[in-house]
């Protein structure tokens, strides 16, 4: 059974695009990164999966349950942190945590206290006095106190200081080791490559690629760096992308036949060159530019 399984899931807002035919599979126990820039459709996909938005077409299952028919059962097993965690301003942090717990049947006091302690969250403050980071912490406590099977975190670290980010990921790693699935939506590629075992990239509402982070990072794409270029230049061929020159040095991403690359390099005069596996960020850019062309 998949923790998340969408089949050509679409959501449009009238004429505006939301997500288009997204087919995604997330295995149980995965620490899954969902990457895309602002407006790519990350939050729309999540809100559709959670029943906040009704799908226009396609279907999806969360933990084997249909997102339309079994919405309440799904929400009972999911901990969701929205990208903009907003709560009732006049209430205290402790009131919000208790309210959230009561909506889930209650009985999570010890877990909530542990989370507040580790995240250094002052429960006596009123919500309107909280900074963005502290509101995020409150959202994390509400999403984690009931120990769900699936954690859906939408841009979780924005506003959190590095120390609390570390604590937050430690908590997620612990829950993941215990068997829970983590679905982490982010445009921070460093945290995806550092913590996730699998990732998917979304662009303009469509899924571009979904694979293990290792495979994505060690794909056929290579970063070529030429130092001290004296003469010659790479051919304008589709296999070359992200070409840039600076101070007589040249860099580009190459995806294609390596023999063709060596032939091309042998026709050029330079001091040195390196071939490396690109970072996830470069892969991300590569997929984006590829789609553009």
């Amino acid at each position, binding site marked *: 059974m998949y923790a998340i399984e969408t089949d050509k899931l679409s959501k449009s807002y009238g004429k505006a695009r939301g997500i288009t035919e997204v087919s995604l599979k997330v295995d149980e126990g995965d620490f899954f990164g969902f990457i895309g820039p602002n407006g790519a459709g990350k939050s729309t996909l999540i809100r559709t999966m*959670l029943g*906040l938005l009704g799908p226009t077409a396609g279907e999806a299952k969360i933990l084997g349950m249909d997102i339309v028919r079994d919405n309440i059962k799904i*929400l*009972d097993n*999911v901990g969701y942190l*929205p990208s*903009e965690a*907003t709560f009732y301003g006049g209430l205290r942090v402790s009131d919000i945590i208790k309210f*959230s717990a009561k*909506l889930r049947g209650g009985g999570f006091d010890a877990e909530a206290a542990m989370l507040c302690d580790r995240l250094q969250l002052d429960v006596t403050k009123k919500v309107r006095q909280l900074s963005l980071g502290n509101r995020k912490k409150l959202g994390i406590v509400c999403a984690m106190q009931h120990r769900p099977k699936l954690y859906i975190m939408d841009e979780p670290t924005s506003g959190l200081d590095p120390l609390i980010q570390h604590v937050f990921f430690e908590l997620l790693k612990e829950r993941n080791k215990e068997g829970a699935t983590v679905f982490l939506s982010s445009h921070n590629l460093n945290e995806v490559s550092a913590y996730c075992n699998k990732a998917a990239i979304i662009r303009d509402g469509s899924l571009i690629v979904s694979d293990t982070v290792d495979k994505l990072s060690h794909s056929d794409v290579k970063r070529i760096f030429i130092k001290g270029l004296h003469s010659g230049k790479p051919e304008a061929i589709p296999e070359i992308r992200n070409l840039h020159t600076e101070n007589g040095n040249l860099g580009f991403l190459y995806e294609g036949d390596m023999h063709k690359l060596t032939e091309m390099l042998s026709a050029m005069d330079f001091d040195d060159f390196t071939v490396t596996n690109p970072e996830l960020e470069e892969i991300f850019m590569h997929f984006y530019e590829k789609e553009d062309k």
Partner: protein
Amino acid sequence: MPIFFNEMKRGKLALIIWSAGMAAMMAITVLIFPLIEPMMSSLGEAYMDFGFDMSSIEMDFMSYIASEFAELMTLCGAIYAGIIASSALSGEERGRTAEFLLSHPVSRTRVAAEKMFYVFNCLFIFSLSSLVLTYASVLVIGEEIEFVKMLLLFASCFAIQLEVAGICFLFSATVRANGIGFAIGFSLLMYVLQLVSTMGEKLKFLNYFTPYSMCSTAEIIENGRLDWKYCIVWPVIAIASVIFAVLYYKKKDIYC
């Protein structure tokens, strides 16, 4: 009922202010009666000039209470009902808390039901506090009052509040915008319509188009009962509004 109790916690200050304000106004109205009493006959004419149908009523303490009640309680109560009902659901979206609330395992029907119960509860406390303080003030000045008629005045006013709340609840479920303007505008429009309906026989049909006609002070004071022909249309409209609101809200896309 965590949503209901959460709403009560959030709305208690507004409830206290509205209830205390209304009850105080009604109490003052009663307590100044000994000063007003000598001018009662001219007061009746003044009300008739203003449009109230007091022709069949002998101006005494009960009719004085009824006329003041018609001015203060029905209008203020309807505005309060409109304000809390029109923001019950849309307030969650405007305040961007809907995403937090609806990501918990609660059905939207339950959310709407607990919110509506909150509105009902607020209006009940609002009306009851005014009734209690008004009656206490009557005892203080030592006037005699027909309690059943007074109860009928408050009950019909409570019904008007529920009807306005029902209409505004539909607004709250379907429109994301701030409903306060709609609530005040709707309450005032209906009130003016009821005023106009008392200005002549040919205009009486307007009573069918306003929920305020349910609280016909003349009928209550004179006959001790409601004018039932005006008590059918608006309750039906209000109930239908609430049902449609829930059905719509169940399918509504929540944008945050």
